[in-house]
Every structure is written in structure tokens, then in C-alpha cells.
């Protein structure tokens, strides 16, 4: 694929690069194309590791990240990429160390590359106007891209979208320039919550929803989903990977996020339509090499145990979203719930966060190399710990879906009772010989005959019952304890 790459690039990642140059596993290509975005991923990994220590302490640190990609003149296969960062989130970065590691990484990836042209100052000005002066600016070449630009764009967007889901305090701007064509995208998160993982690592989770739910007062509406934090578990490292240099301890912590929050709509039917599993490296960037494990996970799921007995899960890859399980209801006489105009579609995201601790590794360069090695062997590590990882994932899903399943049963009861109320009420009206009473009922519903009365009353009663809205005090967001801190930002609409 990239013959110019030096196999001695990363001592610990030799196996990874061999794997990669031979044409990496279909699963990793399916997730996003490593051959195209390797440089970008590595730069982001470096940046996140450099800022991690600084982020751990103190309040939320926001800011912006600019990814500017331009095609090299006279070459459609090479891209110049500039990554710029501004704002408090990257304020504590040791710039000298960062540049040193960056130079080292780039030299190893592209030993013979020439200096990259500076991007247009106007592109940077727009960014600095928003976030202040640049604290980080890294300019590099993305080489030898052999796939169509459209697919490349989709895959970069997918990667950045996944990145933003767990780094929601950072606003990401993507600019693509190819010839005369310019494309700009902003990845902004409307609502996010701070979650503490592994007892000490803050992560800002995107909990915003993309659907509009009616409510009497917008301010009273909950603006997010509900994360459930699972217990962390230690993963055993296979001996052969230990021999390759991955030492220390690896942990995994699942977090589920069911969106949107429906506690304020206690009577609306809900329908789980999508389940996404995302894996994140210790640096909090999306991890590759887990797709095969994720794809096979559904085979170990007991749908009945999760209350999804009338559903089937099909694994799909959706552009800009990534790998998801589409959840489809299998219609049968027993499982068919009356179609409801008021049903809310739910999506479930299962985040798997990784942590690696090795007390003998302290500097960014070694940490980065170790993470690359971990990511390269991630599929094998997950498979080696298949039982406990699958159990942890299943338990996390079961816990989150338990409330939904209870709600579904109550929904069915309410539907049945509502039908009874409607038929009983209309029966009395239709068989009454009291003209005053009948007229009063018809006038009340503003109809002229019992047929219209039947339609209008039926629709109105269902609306009144199933669209019930409760004020924000009943919402989970106000009840969540120490691990979660509410963010009340209402930012511009995300891409």
C-alpha cells in the first residue's frame, strides 16, 4: 500500500505496520480506511495525549479544533493536512515536546517528504476569530490515497463525528479543498454531559438528540440522553502481545447512552431502532480493529433477555455514522403493537472506553507508541477476553433497556385501557335518548354527528393521554449524582 513507510517506524508497532502494508484486515477498512487517515489519526492521538494530563484537573476546558485538508498541486493522491487547536482545552500542552514527537512521527511516516505549504491565512483567521490565537498548529502530508475523494471525505467525517461524541467540549471544523471545490463542515454538540471514567478521567459525552419533541415550553424540556456508566473491568493481555511490548494493565469501561431522554414523556411509546457500539482508545479517539468483534457481538446477544424478543439486529455501516446495528421489529400477531402516531424512536450507543496504565511509561512519545500497539492488537485482546467483555456489554445493554421494557409493558396496558375508555364513552353517547346531553357532547368536541364524534374524541383522548408532558423536575438529568455534571449549553445546530 505505502512502500515508502519504514518498518522500523514504531518499534512496538512493527507488527501493526506489517499487517497494514500487506493490506489490513477487512474489518478495519470497513470502519474507516487506515491507509488514508493514518496521519490524521496519529496527529489527533498525539494532540489528545498531550492535552490529557492537563484536562484531568479543573473545570471543563473548551475550544476548537480545525482540520484543513487540501490536495497537493498536480497530485490527486496526496493531501496536505493542517491541524490547528485553540482555546483552554489545549492551553497546558508542552509545545516543545509536542513538536518534537510530531516531527518524529512524521519523519517516520514520510521520511522523504518535503515541507508542506502553509494554508491560506483566511482559513485560519476565521478559526482564530472564534477561539482565540492558535496554541497548536501542525502541518503534514497525507500520502498516497488510492480511493475516491468522496469516500475519503465520508470516512474522515465519520471519524470526526465519532471523535466529537466523546470530546463534545471541542468544536471541530473540517475544511476540504480539492481544486476549485471547497467543502466546510462543523461538528458541534448541542448538549453534552461530563462523565468520570475509571474514577478519574473526565469525558464529555454528546447527549444531544436530533429529533424534535413537542413540549409546551422549550426551557422545560430535557435536552439530552441518559448515560449509564458500567463497571470497569480488567482485560488480560495475550502472552504473545506482552512479548511484543504491551505491558501494564488494560481496562475497559462500558457506558450506554439512550437517546432521547423520554422521562418527560411518560406515556409515549418508544421504539429502539438503532444500536451503535463505539470503541475508544485511552487517548479518547475512536479505535479501529474492533469492528470484527463488534460485528460478531450480535451473535452472542440474547434478544429475549434484553426484551427485544420481537426484534432482529442487522449489522450495517452507515456513512457518517459508522457501524451500527439496525433494530427492526419483526411483526407478528403477538408482538404487533398498535401503530402509534406518538412513538419516539430511540437510539442506543454503547461506548467502550479503554484505559492503559504502565507506570514505567511517562512521556508522550512512549505513551503514543504503546497505544498504537494496543490498537493494533485490539481485536485479539477483545477476543482473548471475549467472555467477560461480552458479558459486560450485555449487562450494560440489559440495564439500560430494563426501564424501556417496563415502559413498553405499561404502554400496552395504557393502549388497551384507552380503547376501553373510548368505546364505553361513545357507547353511552350513542345510545342516549337525552338530546341535550348528546348535543352538549357534540358541541364540546365541535362536531356535528356521532361518526365525527367518534373520530375526534378518539384522536383527542389519545393525544391528551399519550402526549402527556411532565416538567423538567421529573427528568433524570436533575437527579443524576456525582459522576455526571450538567452542561446547559445550547450551541448552534450540529452538522
Amino acid at each position, binding site marked *: 500500500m505505502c512502500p515508502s513507510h519504514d518498518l522500523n517506524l514504531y518499534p512496538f508497532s512493527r507488527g501493526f505496520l506489517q499487517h497494514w502494508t500487506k493490506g489490513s484486515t477487512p474489518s478495519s477498512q470497513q470502519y474507516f480506511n487506515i491507509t488514508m487517515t493514518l496521519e490524521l489519526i496519529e496527529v489527533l492521538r498525539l494532540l489528545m495525549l498531550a492535552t490529557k494530563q492537563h484536562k484531568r484537573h479543573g473545570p471543563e476546558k473548551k475550544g476548537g479544533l480545525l482540520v484543513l485538508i487540501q490536495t497537493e498541486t498536480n497530485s490527486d493522491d496526496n493531501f496536505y493536512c493542517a491541524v490547528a487547536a485553540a482555546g483552554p482545552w489545549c492551553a497546558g500542552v508542552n509545545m516543545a515536546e509536542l513538536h518534537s514527537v510530531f516531527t518524529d512521527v512524521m519523519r517516520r511516516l514520510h521520511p522523504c517528504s518535503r515541507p508542506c505549504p502553509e494554508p491560506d491565512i483566511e482559513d485560519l483567521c476565521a478559526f482564530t476569530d472564534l477561539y482565540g490565537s492558535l496554541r497548536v498548529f501542525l502541518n503534514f502530508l497525507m500520502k498516497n490515497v488510492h480511493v475516491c475523494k468522496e469516500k475519503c471525505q465520508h470516512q474522515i467525517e465519520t471519524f470526526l463525528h465519532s471523535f466529537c461524541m466523546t470530546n463534545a467540549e471541542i468544536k471541530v471544523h473540517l475544511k476540504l479543498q480539492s481544486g476549485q471545490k471547497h467543502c466546510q463542515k462543523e461538528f458541534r454538540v448541542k448538549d453534552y454531559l461530563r462523565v468520570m471514567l475509571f474514577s478519574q478521567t473526565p469525558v464529555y459525552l454528546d447527549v444531544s438528540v436530533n429529533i424534535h419533541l413537542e413540549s409546551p415550553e422549550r426551557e422545560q424540556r430535557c435536552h439530552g440522553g441518559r448515560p449509564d456508566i458500567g463497571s470497569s473491568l480488567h482485560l488480560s493481555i495475550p502472552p504473545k502481545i506482552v512479548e511484543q511490548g504491551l505491558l501494564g494493565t488494560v481496562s475497559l469501561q462500558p457506558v450506554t447512552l439512550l437517546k432521547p431522554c423520554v422521562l418527560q414523556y*411518560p406515556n409515549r411509546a418508544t421504539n429502539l431502532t438503532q444500536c451503535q457500539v463505539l470503541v475508544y482508545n485511552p487517548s479518547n479517539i475512536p479505535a479501529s480493529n474492533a469492528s470484527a468483534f463488534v460485528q460478531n457481538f450480535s451473535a452472542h446477544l440474547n434478544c429475549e433477555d434484553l426484551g427485544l424478543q420481537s426484534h432482529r439486529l442487522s449489522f450495517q455501516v452507515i456513512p457518517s455514522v459508522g457501524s451500527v446495528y439496525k433494530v427492526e421489529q419483526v411483526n407478528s400477531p403477538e408482538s404487533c403493537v398498535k401503530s402509534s402516531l406518538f412513538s419516539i424512536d430511540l437510539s442506543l450507543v454503547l461506548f467502550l472506553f479503554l484505559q492503559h496504565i504502565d507506570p514505567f511509561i511517562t512521556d508522550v512519545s512512549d505513551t503514543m507508541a504503546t497505544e498504537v500497539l494496543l490498537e493494533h492488537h485490539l481485536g485479539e485482546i477483545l477476543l482473548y477476553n471475549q467472555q467477560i467483555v461480552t458479558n459486560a456489554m450485555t449487562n450494560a445493554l440489559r440495564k439500560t433497556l430494563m426501564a424501556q421494557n417496563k415502559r413498553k409493558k405499561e404502554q400496552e*396496558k395504557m393502549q388497551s385501557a384507552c380503547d*376501553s375508555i373510548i368505546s*364505553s364513552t361513545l*357507547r353511552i353517547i350513542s345510545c*342516549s335518548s337525552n338530546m341535550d*346531553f348528546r348535543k352538549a357532547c357534540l358541541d364540546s368536541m*365541535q362536531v356535528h354527528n356521532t361518526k365525527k364524534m367518534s373520530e375526534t374524541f378518539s384522536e383527542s383522548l389519545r393525544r*391528551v393521554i399519550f402526549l402527556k408532558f411532565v416538567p423538567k423536575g421529573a427528568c433524570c438529568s436533575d437527579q443524576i449524582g456525582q459522576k455526571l455534571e450538567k452542561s446547559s449549553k445550547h450551541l448552534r445546530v450540529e452538522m
Partner: protein
Amino acid sequence: MASQANELFSEIDKLRIQLLHNAEQTVQRADEERRNSEILALIENIILKIVTSVSQEEAPALHLPKRSSWDNVSFDSSVGLQMNSETTFTVVRSDSPASITKFAQIVKILTVIYELILSNSYATKRDIYYNDTQLFGSQATVDHIVDDISCLLKVPRRSLHVLATSKGLITGDLCYLEEDGSRMDCRASNTAIPISSNISGIKNIVSSARFVLIVEKDATFQRLLDDHVCAKLSPCIMITGKGVPDVNSRLMVRKLWDTLHIPIFALVDADPYGIEIMCIYKYGSRAMSFEARSLTVPSVMWLGLLPSDLKRLRVPENALIPLTKKDDAKLNSLLKRPYVQNQPDWLKEIELMQQTKVKAEIQSLAAIAPDFLINVYLPNKLRYGGWV
């Protein structure tokens, strides 16, 4: 023979005169029978409120008087326990998963009642249950809701055209006609007939009974029946509700009092639950307090088994049973009830039971002699006025 009979009833006759004198001074029973059209209008009013709520985009709710709250009940010595005019309510909402089913059940039963009245037909509570077993879930739910509706509309259940299958039995010197014209003769000495389901339809009551004996338990009732007690203590009427009496049994006792104006005696076990059952006949229950005036018979007298009888008759100790914690709790509860304070003699008996810490069933008298109840206890009690 005639003089012996007169001797047996002399105290009873004196009691009757006294009761008749008191009855003139009591408040007349309210005529609670409502016309069908009034009840239809009441139901229509509820439905209109539901429709109006929906038209205003509000979830309809029903406000049911709380029948189980002591706060909603007061005591009147001439009536018994009756529901206050100002009561607290339970709100049954249609937009809450916890209460929507009950809301639906109530509206469904209102519909059934509405149609029964329109067609001038009757149904039992059991019929209503089988109308939609999935919605109602259990017979007890239907029973409870029918009483809730009766209380909500302030009409007796029989006005709702809902009948209950009676569980009680009656025997003795009594003949009457049912509403459908059937002639009921209770005079066969060793059989009893079920109490009618439609007490208000009973007419042409003929009886020369000198008293009515309410028997708590079916077992005791059957024993007395087998021993031909109605013949031995003739003329009399004997009735049982088989434990806690249903509404029809209570209505029947009330009907006998209203028609015959003869003393009514209760024969219950000397235990807290027997006393409570007797109080239901006499003063009514909290749950049915809204219909007290047609269900209570404040003139009921406690014939036996009295706690003081146990000592007086030297009932063998092995026939006595120690009170349990539940019995103590029930006794304390009885002592707090307003009507007990109104009956000093009953209060004394209850306090005696508390002191002796024992209870006894009527059958315990068999420990004295097998036929002691029939041949000694009852005749002497009646002859010498041994009631309180």
C-alpha cells in the same frame, strides 16, 4: 304450653315495646330509591365531564369518595356509621399508568349500568365481570368498583340494576313474595333458603315471629337448624350472613325490622371478630357508610356468646382460646370506635375480654353439655332477658 310460650317471650315482648317506643323518635329512613331517569342523568353528567375535559386538552379524571377513610365517617346513634357530607376524594386519572386501568373499569361499568337501566334489565356483579374479564382481572375488582359507583352517584346498588348473589340463609316463621311473583316459605323446620338477591322487590311479608336471631357462622346456623331450634323457640326467624354479611343479608335484616318491628338478637362467637360482625349489622361498615340508612339496624341486641357468660357458666378452660396479638389489635380498634362508647354494656363485655385475655366460640358451650346451647342457653337467655 301456652303459658310456657308466654313465659319464654315475656321479656322479649317487653323489649319490643321499648324498641317501638324508641323507633318513633328516630329519624325516618331516607327514601333512597331513585328514579331510573335520575340515575341516567347522573351517569350522563360524568360522561359529559369526560368529554369536556378532552375537548379542553386535559386528561379526564374521576373523583371517588374515599370509602375506606375514617375521616369521612361519623357516628349517629339512630343510624350508625354514616358518610359525611364533606368527604375526601381519591383522584383516578386517565393519563397515569397506575390509574388508567381503574379509570377504564369505572367507565366500562358505568356503561353496563347505563344499558341495564335503559333496558330495564338486571345483571349480577358476576355477569359484569364476565363481560370483560381481561379488563377487570378479578371479581373483587368489579365488586369494589360497583360500590364505588354506588357511593359516587349516592344511590344504592340495587338502583343501579346490579344484583349480587346472596350468600346468606334464612329460615323460620316467614313467608313473602319475590319481585317475580315467586312465593318463598321459610317455615320448613330443617331447611333454609338463600336470601333473595332483590330485597327491595320483596313484598307481602307474612310472619308471626316474636324475634329474629342473627347467627354469625354458617356452622352454628346449620347446627341450630338440625336441632330444629326454630320449632323449639317458635315463632322466630333465624338468619345468617355466613361471617361478614353481604349487603343483601344486611338489607334483609333491615327489611324484617322495618316490616315486623320485632327484637333482633345476635348470636356470635365471644371473640373480637364476632363482635365486629355484630357491629356491622347494628351500626354498619365504613365501606358502606354512604348507604347506612338502609343497611343498619341500631336496635340489634347482643344475645350471646358474652364474655361474661364464659365465667358465669364456668365454660371449661380447655374450651377457651387465648387471645392473639391480632385479637388484641382488633379489640383496641373496636374500643376506639364511636359506637362502642355509646353502648356501656358492650364496652364492659369487651373490656372483660381484654382482661381475661381469652375468647371462645359458640361451640364451646358443647363442652358443658352437648345440647347445652339449644336446650339451656338459648331458652334461658330469651326467657330471662340475658341480652345486652
